[in-house]
């Protein structure tokens, strides 16, 4: 090589090494312990942007996890899932006939823009939410006049105009305000679940500021100038799909007063493993917040086995259950048919039971979740910690391969269940692993081959609720701590079974009658009836229980007060950053 060429190469090599050294330079942390840090900023990612922060239409876990920190309801859940006062001064006791609730409101509550909170805001927020007919509008369905308001077709500015002039088409007749700090709610029929439903954070029972909403009726929540709530934090910047920031509200009316000054939420990272790596580098203080506690099993295992990090891992049972549903009705609207129909009597029921008993649920959670991110569903479909979880072991959760085989043989053998397909949505890795496990179990323990049918989530849900699948992945995430949330929304004619919004098609007169009775009772009385409803499902072998989910969080040791209950993240106003 000529000397000049060598010099060029040498220069290139030195430049490359120098550039790498400069560019690889990152920040590191250090310092002592004890006391509050001077910088009270909390950083965490959410792995997908929230859909909306408007309580009238919000329907995703991420939405409500954010909303619960800058909006309020009249009542809310505490960390033990008790209903506690929020903007109301006390949790109201219903009238003796269970038809009237009177809420006394706090006099000191204000919105973050300084507007006073009064009963007018409750009427506006609830009428608006009922008129919008979002996913959780039915949380207000017990209020007299709901059926009329539910027919409203107007939205946006047109709806605002109707609300402004208290148009009867968008006014719940059962909702009145005798004075600025009292709200009276008259129900159309007793509903023991009413208070629980309006406590659900970030949904239709929560309060918005009319002055802010009317400035941009469709999109007020995405602009810091109009994203106004009564909560301890206020939005100060939002770049969709990139980041959102909240600041603590000065002199907030409630308690505990926020210690954090700022909350920065990164929306740009959508991959959980990437978020975990950034957390390990010190880029985040928490991972798993905002409804993203379903972290990859491999990462959790690795962290669990890393001595310096294992103490930062928090595993907490969550309120999602997974099970297998059968198609149980065949009619003009449900064409899937299959061997598991209610009309098939005992033979079909025994086949359903054979399929249930053939699955080893303990092996399932070991294989699918490494016994970390889920636990076997042995107490009915409602997870532990929630009202309605069975005291006794669910017989459908048993594993008895011999009995399963015997039931199959006695009821037509493998030929009676030939050509079956198990439909599932593969976006969730747990669904894929479960499907493969179930296929192997049915093959091994029953000698029945079941084909797997992966379908993208959106069309899967649509087809499943139409009753298009004979066997399908099913599940439910509790909205609030009341069995009504489960028994009203999954089975029975109330949700639309057999022909609409119903995976199994399961409905019987006995189920519907008992459900109506239970729904009308105060929750303490209703528990026994809901337990009977669960027993009906067990007796009719309506489902194969699989597992309850477990949430995983990574929390830096210097973040105090962060964590989760089985529903939601701990509130930001209970969190502080310690010196580190």
């Amino acid at each position, binding site marked *: 090589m000529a000397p000049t*060429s060598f010099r060029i190469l040498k220069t290139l090599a030195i430049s490359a090494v120098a550039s790498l050294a400069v560019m690889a330079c990152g920040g590191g942390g250090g310092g002592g312990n004890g006391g509050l840090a001077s910088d009270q900023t909390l950083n965490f990612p959410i792995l997908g942007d929230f859909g909306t922060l408007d309580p009238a239409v919000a329907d995703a876990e991420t939405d409500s996890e954010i909303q619960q920190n800058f909006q309020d309801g009249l009542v809310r859940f505490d960390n033990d899932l008790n209903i506690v006062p929020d903007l109301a001064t006390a949790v109201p006791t219903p009238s003796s006939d269970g038809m009237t609730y009177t809420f006394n409101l706090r006099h000191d509550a204000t919105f973050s823009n300084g507007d006073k909170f009064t009963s007018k805001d409750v009427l506006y927020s609830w009428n608006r939410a009922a008129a919008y007919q979002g996913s959780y509008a039915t949380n207000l369905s017990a209020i007299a006049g709901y059926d009329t308001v539910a027919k409203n077709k107007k939205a946006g500015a047109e709806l605002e105009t109707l609300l402004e002039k208290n148009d009867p088409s968008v006014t719940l007749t059962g909702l009145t305000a005798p004075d600025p700090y009292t709200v009276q709610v008259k129900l159309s029929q007793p509903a023991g679940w009413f208070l629980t439903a309006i406590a659900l954070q970030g949904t239709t029972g929560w309060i918005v500021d009319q002055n802010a909403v009317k400035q941009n009726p469709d999109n007020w929540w995405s602009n810091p100038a109009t994203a106004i709530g009564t909560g301890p934090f206020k939005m100060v910047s939002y770049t*969709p*799909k990139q980041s959102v920031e909240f600041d603590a509200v000065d002199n907030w009316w409630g308690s505990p007063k926020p210690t954090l000054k700022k909350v920065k939420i990164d929306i740009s990272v959508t*991959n959980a493993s990437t978020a975990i790596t950034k957390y390990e*580098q010190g880029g985040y203080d928490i991972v798993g917040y905002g409804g993203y506690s379903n972290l990859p099993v491999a990462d959790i295992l690795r962290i669990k086995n890393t001595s310096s990090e294992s103490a930062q891992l928090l595993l907490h049972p969550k309120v999602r259950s997974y099970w297998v549903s059968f198609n149980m009705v065949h009619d003009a609207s449900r064409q899937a048919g299959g061997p598991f129909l209610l009309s098939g009597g005992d033979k079909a029921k025994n086949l359903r039971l054979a399929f249930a008993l053939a699955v080893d649920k303990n092996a399932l959670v070991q294989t699918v979740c490494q016994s970390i991110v889920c636990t076997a569903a042995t107490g009915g479909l409602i997870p532990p910690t929630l009202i309605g979880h069975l005291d006794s072991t669910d017989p459908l959760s048993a594993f008895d391969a011999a009995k399963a085989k015997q039931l199959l043989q006695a009821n037509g053998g493998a030929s009676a269940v030939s050509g079956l397909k198990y439909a599932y949505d593969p976006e969730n890795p747990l669904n894929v692993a479960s499907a493969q496990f179930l296929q192997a179990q049915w093959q091994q323990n029953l000698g029945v081959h079941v084909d797997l049918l992966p379908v993208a989530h*959106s069309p899967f849900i649509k087809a499943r609720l139409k009753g298009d699948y004979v066997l399908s992945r099913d599940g439910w995430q509790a909205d609030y701590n009341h069995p009504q949330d489960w028994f009203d929304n999954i089975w029975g004619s109330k949700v639309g079974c057999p022909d609409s919004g119903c995976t199994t098609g399961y409905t019987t007169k006995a189920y519907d009658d008992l459900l109506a009775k239970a729904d009308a009772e105060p929750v303490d009385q209703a528990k026994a009836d809901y337990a009977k409803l669960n027993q009906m499902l067990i007796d009719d072998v309506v489902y194969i229980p699989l597992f309850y989910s477990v949430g995983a969080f990574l929390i830096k040791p210097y973040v105090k007060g962060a964590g989760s209950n089985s529903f939601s993240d701990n509130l930001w106003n209970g969190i502080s950053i310690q010196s580190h």
Partner: protein
Amino acid sequence: MFTRGTLIYIGQRLVLIVLAVLGVSSLVFLGIHRLPGDALFSEHLHGDQYQQTLHHYGLDRPLWVQYVNFLAGMIHGNLGESLVNRGVPITPIVLREMSVSAEIGLVALIFTVGIGMTFGVVAAIRQNTWMDYVLSTTSVIGYSMPNFVIATFLILVFGIWLDNFTQGTFYFQIGWPGRYGSIGAIWLPAFALGFPYASIVARLTRASMLEVIRQDYIRTARAKGLREAVIMVRHGLRNALIPVITILGPLVIGIITGGVVIENIFGIPGLGKEFANSILNRDYNIVIGVFTGYAALVGLANLGVDLLYVVIDPRIRY
């Protein structure tokens, strides 16, 4: 350098790009609306409430009416609103994400050309020496490995091992500070994105240089006593670049589409991270916006590459 003919050519190409973008977005519009499922239907939203929400977004209208509305919006630069991020206008999101993808794509292209040509030239000059073997082997490795494997490996080395080894003093910090990435944030993803293509450029440059440096005019230049660096750069490399420029077009498309994976792995808020999610979520307008953005990026990048011919080879005129 840019004659009147060149400017006319650029104008024509820009018109074609606009037409191509319109065509792509129309095809995607029809395709995505034909996919089963939608963004709104859920376990909580079905029946009458679902119908009402469809009505709110105009999704209960005949497809041709929706298409006409979409075209009218497109012409005015309005891609509509997201269905998942309810009511959020899409055009600013797509433009922002497009600029982020363009930024990382451009840096990756610089890596591709810079590393590829350096490797190729050095390997050719030092043909059949250990340096040639090392660089050629590196190129084969780069060419053989998918970019997501390279990305994961680089994160492991620079993000985790280096962090542990230096006790948190030196490491690559994953993330994207602000709207555009800093040099510290962009170099590793850009390298991961560009390295496989750099390997192709290296192999092509080596072959091209080997052919050029055996030409008579190179021998003549040496006989005239020109410095070796001048011979290699001015007479050798410039002529060797023509075939390299020819494949830059396809490489640019590869780099832009390769960003889908790299952006997701490195947490970069570009178009790539929208790609799969928006389709899975059936967020119609975002899907159309993402494809429209990619079509525009590919069109503009190809135009840029074609204009490079004029710079490199004075014989080429438009």
